[in-house]
C-alpha cells in the first residue's frame, strides 16, 4: 500500500490543488482540504457551488483534471487500479437513496461484500443483519425498497454502505429528499455513527446536525472553499460576505 504519502501520513483524505472541469465549465477550483481520521466535516453552500462534485471526486465518481487526492494513504490517479481499492474503503450515501429496487433490503446489503470483498454468503448476511439492527430496521430485511418509507430507505442505504466496513463515509444531502417527519430518524442514525468515531464528510443544510456533530464546517461558493472553521465560530461569526448572506437565507 506504500504510495506517495506527503506530509500527514495519518490523514483520511488529502486533496491538493484539485481542479475539476465539466467540459468547459470550471466546477472546482484549487481545492485544498485535509480530513483527519475520525473527523466529521459538514459541507454547505448555495446550489451549484460544487458540494456534490467535491465529495464525488473523493471516490472518483468524477475524474479530476489536475491536483492529487489521497484517500487512506492511497493516492488516487484517474482510472488507475487504486480506484477499486479506494472505493472499497469509502462508503457513500446519496440524496436519492439509490437502493437496488429488484433486491430485498438484505440482498442490497449483501451484494457488495460478496462480490467485492469475497466474503461468504453466511458472513455477509450476518454483517448485513447487524447493520440493519444498528440503523434500527432489522424487521424490514426481507422487504423490497419500494415497500419502505423514504426515511427507512435512506437508513437501508446507510446500512448498505456500512456493510463494506468503510473507513470513510460520504453523504450527499442524505435528508433533502425526505418528508420533514423522516429527517430526524436519518439524522439520528448519522449522529450515532459519528459518535462511534467514523470519518464523515456530509453535504447538508441541516445546521442543527452541523452544530452537534461537525468538527469543521466548510462553506463553498462557485467551486471554491470560501470559508472553513469550527461550527461555533462558523455560525456565530462568519468571516466571508457570501457566507453571511447564505447563513442569513437558510436561517429564515
Amino acid at each position, binding site marked *: 500500500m506504500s504510495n506517495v504519502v506527503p506530509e500527514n501520513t495519518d490523514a483520511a483524505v488529502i486533496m491538493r490543488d484539485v481542479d475539476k472541469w465539466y467540459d468547459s465549465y470550471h466546477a472546482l477550483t484549487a481545492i485544498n482540504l485535509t480530513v483527519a481520521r475520525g473527523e466529521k466535516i459538514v459541507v454547505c453552500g448555495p446550489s451549484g457551488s460544487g458540494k456534490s462534485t467535491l465529495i464525488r471526486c473523493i*471516490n472518483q*465518481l468524477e475524474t479530476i483534471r489536475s491536483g492529487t487526492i489521497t484517500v487512506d494513504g492511497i493516492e488516487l490517479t484517474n482510472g488507475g487500479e487504486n480506484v*477499486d481499492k479506494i*472505493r*472499497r474503503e*469509502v*462508503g*457513500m450515501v*446519496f440524496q*436519492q437513496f*439509490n*437502493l*437496488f*429496487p*429488484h433486491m430485498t433490503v438484505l440482498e442490497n446489503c449483501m*451484494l*457488495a461484500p460478496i*462480490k*467485492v470483498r469475497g466474503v461468504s454468503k453466511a458472513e455477509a448476511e450476518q454483517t448485513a443483519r447487524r447493520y440493519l439492527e444498528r440503523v434500527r430496521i432489522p424487521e424490514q430485511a426481507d422487504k423490497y425498497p419500494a415497500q419502505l418509507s423514504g426515511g427507512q430507505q435512506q437508513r437501508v*442505504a446507510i446500512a*448498505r*454502505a456500512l456493510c*463494506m466496513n468503510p473507513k470513510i463515509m*460520504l453523504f450527499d444531502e442524505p435528508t433533502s429528499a425526505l418528508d420533514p417527519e423522516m429527517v430526524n430518524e436519518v439524522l439520528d442514525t448519522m449522529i450515532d455513527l459519528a459518535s462511534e468515531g467514523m470519518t464523515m464528510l456530509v453535504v447538508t443544510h441541516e445546521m442543527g446536525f452541523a452544530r452537534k456533530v461537525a468538527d469543521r464546517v466548510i462553506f463553498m461558493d462557485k467551486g471554491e472553499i470560501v470559508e472553513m472553521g469550527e461550527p461555533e465560530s462558523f455560525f456565530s461569526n462568519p468571516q466571508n460576505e457570501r457566507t453571511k448572506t447564505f447563513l442569513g437565507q437558510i436561517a429564515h
Partner: protein
Amino acid sequence: MFRSFGPNEALYIITAVQWTLLLSAIAFAGGAVGGMAIALARVSAIKTLRYAALSFIRVFQGTPLLMQLFLVYFGLSIMGVGINLWVAAAAALTLHASAYLGEIWRGCIEAVPAGQSEASYALGLKYGDRMRYVVLPQAAKISVAPTVGFLVQLIKATSLTSIIGFVELTRAGQIINNATFQPLTVFSLVAAVYFVLCWPLSMWARHLESRFAVATAR
C-alpha cells in the same frame, strides 16, 4: 399435375409453420446474443466499441433484410465458406435481429437511472458485477414488452427467406399456389397462420406495455 386445394395442401402449408418457428427461434437466439453484445458495446466506455456498434446498427437497420439474405447467401460461399441455406438464413436473420434488439436493449439499459450505476461504483462493484447484478436485471424488466413486440416483426421477417428458396410458411404457400392456382385460398390461409402466431404475441406485448405504463405512472 394440377391439384385442387384440399386438406393435404392445407396440411402442407400448416406443417411448414415448423420451419417458420424454427427460423424465428434461431434468429431470436442469435439476435439475443448479438443484440446483447451490441447493446453493451453501445453503452461501453470505449469509444471505438461504441462507434463500431453504431456502424453495425446503421448498416443493418439501413439496408433491406432481403439484400442481407442475398449477400450472406452468395457472399459467404464466394469467400470460400461453403454454407447451406440454413446457415445463410440463420446468419442473415441473426445479424438483422442483433441490430434491432441491440438498439431496443440499449434504450432499456439507458432507462435504468444513472444513480443505480453510481451506487454500484461507490460500493466498489466492477463492470461485470454491476451489469450482471444491478443494471441488466432492471433493464430486463423494462425490455420485455418491446422485445416481445420485436419477436412479431422477426416472425414475419422469416417470410423473406422464401426469396432465397427456403421452404417455410410463405414458400410453402407459393408452392401450393403454383400447383393449385387458387391464390385467394392459399394466401388467405398463409396469412391466417401468421396471424395466429403473431396476434397473441402482439396482444401480450401491448398488455405488458400498458402494465408497465401503469407501474411507472405512479
